[in-house]
């Protein structure tokens, strides 16, 4: 009976290790081999109850001109990306076809209002360590105003999987920016 319990627990333990490990593995692949896209951010911030603190991200390209509503029926929506002249990512068009290339990202939700198509990318939370959260928030808000658009994120895309990599403020990764701008 006890041996059986231990054997069952071995399976459970493998699952407990395997699920997060699989997430790590997929992310590692995308971060190592995916194509880099830069997304300009647009402002906000709440607090998630359990997983520490994060910066809620909005992107400039999540809203773009479209004369007619994109009809997806009940299917999942994907955004095909293109690079603009400044080197930032823009949505080229939306599609319901799941193409596994390095310029397509899934879209969480899509809606149309007043001649503009709105989408929500699935990478919209940037986790920060508890100790840095207030400073990170301040830095993000200061560099993400209408008169001072100085923040962007890099996202690696590989076969339709999008992995948020870094948040850049004033062209420095967040952690380095905080270190160089800390009061000490």
């Amino acid at each position: 009976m006890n041996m059986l319990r231990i054997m069952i627990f071995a399976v459970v333990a493998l699952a407990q290790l395997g699920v997060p490990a699989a997430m790590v593995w997929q992310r590692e692949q995308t971060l190592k081999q995916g194509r880099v896209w830069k997304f300009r951010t647009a402002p906000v911030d709440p607090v998630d109850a359990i997983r520490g603190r994060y910066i809620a991200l909005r992107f400039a390209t999540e809203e773009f001109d479209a004369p007619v509503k994109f009809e997806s029926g009940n299917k999942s929506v994907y955004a095909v990306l293109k690079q603009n002249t400044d080197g930032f990512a823009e949505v080229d068009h939306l599609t319901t076809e799941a193409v596994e290339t390095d310029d397509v990202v899934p879209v969480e939700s899509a809606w149309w209002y007043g001649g503009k198509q709105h989408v929500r990318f699935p990478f919209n939370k940037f986790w920060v360590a508890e100790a840095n959260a207030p400073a990170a928030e301040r830095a993000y808000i200061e560099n993400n105003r209408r008169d001072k658009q100085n923040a962007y994120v890099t996202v690696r895309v590989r076969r339709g999987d999008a992995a948020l990599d870094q948040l850049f403020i004033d062209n420095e990764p967040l952690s380095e920016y905080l270190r160089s701008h800390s009061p000490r």
Partner: protein
Amino acid sequence: MAGVRNRWAIRWLRSQLPELVASGVITSENARAIERHYEHDEPRTNFAFVILATLGSALVAAGIILLIAHNWDDLSRATRTTIAFLPLLIAQALVVFTLMRRNESRPWREAAAIFDVAAVATAFSLISQTYQLQGTFSDFMRTWLLLSIAIVYLLRTTLGAIAYVIGCVVWLFATRGMFSPEGNPMLFWLLLVLVIPYVAIRFRLDRAGRKTAILVIILALASLFGVGATADFANANVGALAYAGLATAIYLCGMKFFPQTTGRLHPLAVVGGIAIGVVTIVLSFESNWHMTYRFSRNSAANLAVAVELLFPIAAVCLAGFDLLGRRAAFSLSAALLPIVAAVAWALTHLCELPDDKWHSTSCSFAAAIVMNCYALLLGIDILARGIRRNSIARANFGLLLIAALAICRFFDSDLSFVARGVGFIIVGLGFLVANLLLFKRRTAP
């Protein structure tokens, strides 16, 4: 140190007893005397040790976390990932140790279970942070619950089962709560079903136990939340039947599976009784019988309707089974609620259903009248039962039901002040007379 050696020695000695008796070295009487002698020592040292060990390891862990947190941002992704998995590996080692060496000690099992489940959450949150994993709180809760349920069974922890059921409700609120009204709540039932075999095991082993009672009550309350979310999701006019069925099923389960010899009701039956009263009063409002022919029809919504209908069917089966076997100990009028609700529901469908939920029909009034009559009869029956059984609590619950019904009707109808005043006086007199009667009977020799 001496204490530890002693404990080992005692355990060894106790393990030798059957052999010694078998070989005739000591009599079974001697063996029992030795057992009795050491009986009180072990659990106490065991428990104290677990508490101290938990406290000690928590302090060490807190220290390590402080050291790591200080340099967290400077660590590489690989290092952070390793650190995220460490507590989980330690917790799993502790579970294996507990299963092999401390399987009979409840504190060890509870502590190992809590440690393991917390370590899974820690690993997830650290990995989420390190790899900027997105996902919602509801996704996280679902994965966490699924990875934890087996621990409840393996380590036989009732506290863990209670926490799991509460976790299911948290998942429900995260999926179809105030901030995310669109989610599909049906997985809730699957998550809840996963804990049912454990409830059955507890029931078989320790039916009268306090922890078993708490577990079944938490399960009943969780189901009430589940029915609410399911009815909201199905949006198919059968929420009233589902609630009536669930409340009655809870009451009947309490009466049937937890019979009490003292004449008092099991807490589960009390919860069910209160639920029956509340549902009856809520359904006595005419606005709750507004139906519309516009409801969702897709496979997910149909499944939700099927789940909703399970409850009244279960309640009727439970009651019918006992009635046929002439073993019914429950209040028949309370058990009738799902049937009465079904009659009222059928009545509303005699009229053509309006476009939206804001319109009354003559049939919705008829349904409300049926429910009002039932509420009054139920109140009177419970009052009479209370008086017959000499139970002040039950008699007052019956009166409370009648009073609640009266108050609700006074406020939503256009009666004159005189009529309302007279009504209140009658209800108040009812309370006084019934309580006087009961107390008189109690004090009489």
